[in-house]
């Protein structure tokens, strides 16, 4: 068990830069998720940690051991591949035993450990089979069993659930998480699925275009997104974004969004002072917009606007309302099943304590930036 540090990792493939300067400190025993869209560099980062790729710049440290140029076998890492990479010519038993055989464990020890791992993943009765006789879910379990059998320092998982069907995926999510808690191995988990990231990660590192956008606990990522990308990538339906001009008069902050105006509480004053007269990006999640009669009693600062119902998605557990406010569509999420006529007028309240304001140029969250500055000073 070990802590992992990435220092300024850069990896290019020809002219494309896959990873563009990544710094990340992963704690001992932590379950960290690298989350991002395809092509964001998350898998490359994982492969650099595994030793399957050598970075063009930067260092990989396991504890205080520099492993940047060490081959994978000298790192004591394990990996669950997206394709599982179960060797087709070996029985399940031999697949799981392989890492131990290579490391020259005594025969009885191998047997004991394979049985332990198989039991843990409930595949004991499959040990005598060949991979092509297994279902996708079973292969996935074999891949995980093989990965934990050596008790690695670092366990790497590359989208391990992406080839499973939806039901199985939900089940394996909690199983993998519980398994990791039990064996307490430092785990780095790559996924593009935000739900997986939110439910499994102790912390999440959101990546885009080869860079880490934000690192934090799932609730931090969700409630305090660092920039427009993170805010938009995490959460379904996606956060509403609109441009607005900041007007500050007599310590009053007005956001002018052409269709409507929003009066912000004074708490935002220190943050927005320097943006007077400038355009910012305002973001608000669909669940933080309440139609009349649905505002929670705890919500204090509300700003009311009106729109026409454009489209309704009835999901059963939730109702998603697409509201036309004139020149834009606001998406509103109400829990429970509700009926709305298309074309009818609806008044909704924006929950001002859950509003996000981003710099138009840098797309960085002003609140988050401010927090950082306060923390640093």
């Amino acid at each position, binding site marked *: 068990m070990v802590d992992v540090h990435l220092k300024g990792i850069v990896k290019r493939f020809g002219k494309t830069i896959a990873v563009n300067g990544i710094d990340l400190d992963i704690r001992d025993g932590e379950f960290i998720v690298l989350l991002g869209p395809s092509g964001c560099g998350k898998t490359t980062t994982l492969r650099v940690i595994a030793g399957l790729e050598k970075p063009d710049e930067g260092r990989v440290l396991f504890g205080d051991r520099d492993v940047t140029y060490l081959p994978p*076998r000298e790192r004591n890492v394990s990996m669950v591949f997206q*394709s599982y990479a179960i060797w087709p010519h070996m029985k399940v038993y031999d697949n799981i035993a392989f890492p131990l055989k290579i490391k020259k464990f005594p025969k009885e020890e191998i047997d004991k450990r394979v049985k332990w791992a198989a039991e843990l993943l409930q595949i004991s009765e499959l040990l005598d089979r060949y991979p092509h006789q297994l279902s996708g879910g079973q292969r996935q379990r074999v891949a995980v069993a093989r990965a934990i059998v050596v008790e690695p320092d670092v366990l790497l998982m590359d989208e391990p659930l992406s080839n499973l069907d939806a039901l199985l995926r939900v089940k394996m999510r909690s199983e993998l998480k519980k398994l990791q808690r039990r064996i307490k191995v430092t785990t780095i988990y790559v996924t593009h699925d935000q739900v997986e990231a939110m439910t499994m990660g102790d912390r999440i590192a959101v990546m885009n275009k080869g860079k880490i956008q934000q690192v934090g606990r799932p609730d931090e990522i969700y409630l305090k997104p660092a920039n427009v990308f993170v805010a938009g990538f995490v959460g379904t339906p996606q956060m509403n974004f609109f441009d607005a001009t900041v007007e500050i008069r007599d310590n009053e902050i007005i956001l002018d969004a052409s269709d409507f105006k929003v009066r912000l509480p004074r708490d935002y004053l220190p943050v927005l002072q320097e943006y007077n007269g400038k355009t910012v990006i305002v973001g608000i999640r669909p669940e933080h917009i309440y139609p009349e009669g649905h505002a929670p009693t705890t919500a204090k600062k509300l700003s009311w606007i009106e729109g026409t119902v454009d489209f309704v998605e009835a999901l059963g557990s939730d109702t998603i309302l697409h509201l036309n406010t004139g020149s834009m569509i606001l998406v509103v999420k109400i829990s429970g099943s509700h009926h709305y006529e298309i074309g009818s007028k609806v008044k909704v309240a924006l929950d001002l304590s859950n509003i996000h304001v981003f710099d138009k140029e840098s797309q960085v969250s002003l609140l988050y930036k401010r927090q950082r500055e306060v923390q640093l000073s």
Partner: protein
Amino acid sequence: MSKVSVMEKYLPYILIAPSLAYLLFFIGYPLAQGLYLAFTENGAFSLENIEYLLNSPFSKFWEALTDTFLLVLVIIPIQVAIALGLAMLFNMKFWGRNTALYLVILPLTISDVAAGLIWYSMLSTNGFFNKLLMNIGLIKEPIYFFGYEYRPMEFLAIVLTEVWRATAIVFVILFAGLQMISQDHIEAAEVFGANVWQRLRYIVFPMLKPSLQAALIIRTLFAFQIFGVVWVLAGRDIPVLAGEAYYEQVQLRHTGVAAIYALIIAAISVTIGYIYIKLFRAQYLEEGG
């Protein structure tokens, strides 16, 4: 409606029939005719051709048989070893791989006669090889590769040429086989601690086995038909089965004897082909599981 479906039902057979008929005629008829030619003389059954083949002082049958097998036994292992090494080398990522690949498989495109001529230019008395060695002072006199008194050297020249020419075929089959092994399978072994040798031994070789068998047998099959290279480089100094068939037919007009040679080559090939199909089948069933 039913007319259409009847048509649809027989259409594939109609499409295949002409090809099949052509092949069966052009292979079946010569085989039958070959048997007839081999065992008749002026329309009556005769063993005269066999007699000539085995006992005539002009016939080099036993030599041809031994030399053909000897060439196969020497050439094939070298080719497989080199091709395997090359396939693994080219399975790595490096700059300019596609160009290098194209260059390495160039010999696939040229005929055995041309290959013989090319290596003649390398190895002849005034050829590149001798000039090179003399100019760097390794030898004083040229090394003679050709002529009846230098038969071992002729044998060596044939081996060199065949290795140069036909290793590419083995390489392509093995390379294609390697490419089919998902990189993940090899990387998984790497992550779980296997070094280069262990990855080869436990992952790559077992998964490459079908390709290796295919390459081995195809190459063997063609090796028994070796002709052009030998004829260009050594003539009848080193007799081979196909060469003798050519000689008996074209130079001596012993059609019956040539036919026997042809039948022997066919018999050897069919045997090897039979083994191949057996293995191919077994592999197929295994994978189908």
